[in-house]
């Protein structure tokens, strides 16, 4: 029996090793339920929170989701969340019980809000040693710029990342949208402004029509497209990012639903991966991927899983 391979992932410049590369995607996870089905403390490398905003948001009206046969889903949840104060007081405490690094996903609609949120988070940081990173959800409208998403321009990204970076001393990931054209300049802006990692991708934009009623199914017409159909788009983003920024950790996300998908993302350049839509039907997927990675590493004689990151580029 060979030794258990090391699934640890070390990211540059931080004094912390993820015990494995498996994270959940923001907004698609409920730890208390999933922990009953697979032991999170063992199977996951960290937990990403639902995106929180400065104050509570009630979200959009129903229906909020559309199932797209075979290819994925649309969602129009509208960032329903209890607000930052509640999350800092209650959610972080319950998340800490899993003894995993916590990645707090944040969004706001102005630089001032981003700045205030960062101050609030920093002020409780010492209470939550597991709070490792912030992930900025850049797919949120900037009210000072006519509601255009911060993430849709280099300037918007620079401003937000700089604002948070000035206050938050820890790990900072910028989660990019695939809806704003070439992702490389956007990522460049985030890195330049101080992001220590790039999460890619958020959902694509999509529409579904109810042909019987002759109108869009979602009340707000467009929704975020996720699931197996977005995987090649996400992999393309990860590939490009790794090629241009080999030193910057990439957190790959989009359509991952198996061990093989995970391996593809890592080989394309992702140090860590996030699983979203696929865990709705298969909440035990985290454990399946964990066991699969262990077995794969053993079969391939990998001493460290980290060796896989970006390996497809050197072929």
């Amino acid at each position, binding site marked *: 029996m060979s030794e258990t391979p090391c699934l640890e992932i070390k990211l540059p410049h931080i004094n912390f090793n993820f015990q494995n590369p498996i994270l959940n995607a923001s907004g698609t996870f409920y730890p208390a339920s999933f922990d*009953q089905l697979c032991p999170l403390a063992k199977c996951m490398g960290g937990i990403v929170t639902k995106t929180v905003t400065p104050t509570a948001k009630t979200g959009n009206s129903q229906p909020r989701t559309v199932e797209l046969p075979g290819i994925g889903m649309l969602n129009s949840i509208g960032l329903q969340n*209890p607000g930052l104060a509640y999350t800092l007081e209650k959610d972080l405490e319950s998340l800490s019980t899993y003894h995993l690094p916590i990645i707090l996903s944040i969004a706001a609609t102005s630089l001032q809000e981003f700045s205030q949120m960062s101050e609030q988070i920093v002020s409780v940081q010492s209470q939550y040693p597991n709070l490792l990173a912030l992930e900025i959800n850049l797919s949120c409208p900037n009210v000072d710029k006519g509601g255009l998403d911060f993430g849709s321009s280099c300037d918007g990204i620079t401003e937000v990342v700089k604002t948070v970076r000035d206050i938050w001393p820890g790990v900072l990931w910028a989660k990019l949208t695939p809806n704003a054209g070439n992702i490389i300049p956007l990522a460049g802006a985030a890195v330049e402004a101080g992001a220590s990692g790039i999460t890619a991708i958020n959902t694509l934009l999509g529409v579904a029509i109810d042909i019987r009623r002759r109108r869009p199914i979602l009340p707000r017409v467009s929704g975020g497209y996720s699931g197996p159909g977005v995987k090649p788009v996400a992999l393309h983003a990860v590939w490009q990012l790794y090629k241009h920024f080999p030193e910057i950790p990439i957190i790959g996300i989009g359509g991952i639903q198996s061990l093989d998908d995970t391996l593809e993302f890592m080989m394309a350049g992702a140090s860590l991966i996030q699983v979203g839509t696929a865990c*709705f039907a298969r909440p035990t997927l985290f454990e399946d991927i964990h066991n699969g990675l262990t077995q794969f590493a053993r079969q391939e004689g990998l001493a460290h899983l980290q060796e896989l990151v970006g390996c497809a580029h050197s072929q």
Partner: protein
Amino acid sequence: MQDYLCEVVRQENIGPDLYLLSLNTLRKPQQVAFACRPGQFVMVDLHSEAFLFRRPFSVLSVDKATGIFHILYKVVGRGTQMMANWQSGFQLSVLGPLGNGFSQRPQAKMEASKTLLVGGGIGVAPLYRFLETQSKSQNQSLEDVQCVYGARTAADLGLPIVEQLEYWLGSDKLMLCTDDGSLGFHGNVAEYLRQNPRLVEDSGHIMVCGPTRMMQACVTTCRNTAPSALIEVSLEEHMPCGTGACSGCVVERADQALPSKVCLEGPVFQAQQLAWEGVS
């Protein structure tokens, strides 16, 4: 909650597009049988790449001795259409039990001490399970329980379901309604309640399950007629995950600003907790 590997033991067509699916849990301990309260549900994996989400179904009935449990379902779309083709021996994953379920009967001695069950169509399933658990419980009896059950036609009620309800309740405490008048009261269950206020007045605990409009109409009548009764409704929302992960299944609340996830905090709610338009 667990993800159980199950096997189809039997599938019976008991009415127009109406199926009774019997499942046996394999391998894992047969806890679906022990833990499932009336009103709780399961998420059924359709095991086909054509579907992304599992489908939620109430547990109709559980046989503790064998571990076999039953789901009553209506074919309404592609997923349920495919389920209707499942044969004995077909294996599938079933996640459950999920959700909160109905409250226990209020213990306090009240003037209005009866329990009233109101089921529309497939909404009879969790009420059936309530009667089943009640009939097997040593310190509860069905003496004070009455049930109004309606569907479009007599055939849509499902004969085996009606027979079992009659066995538990006797024909005097089971009121059947059909939209076309082919059996029992000619009209829907909400109309029946409006025309029979005594039934509602006598009830301290009312449980309603069925299409949203029907539940809203019933709640309006019940609130007006029995203002102090505990009125519970079991909601049906589209549920991508069933585990609280996606925030896709929410319902607006009358008593708090943030909507509730139906899969996690429900599917059973007290009627006054809900911000239902047009319900007085």
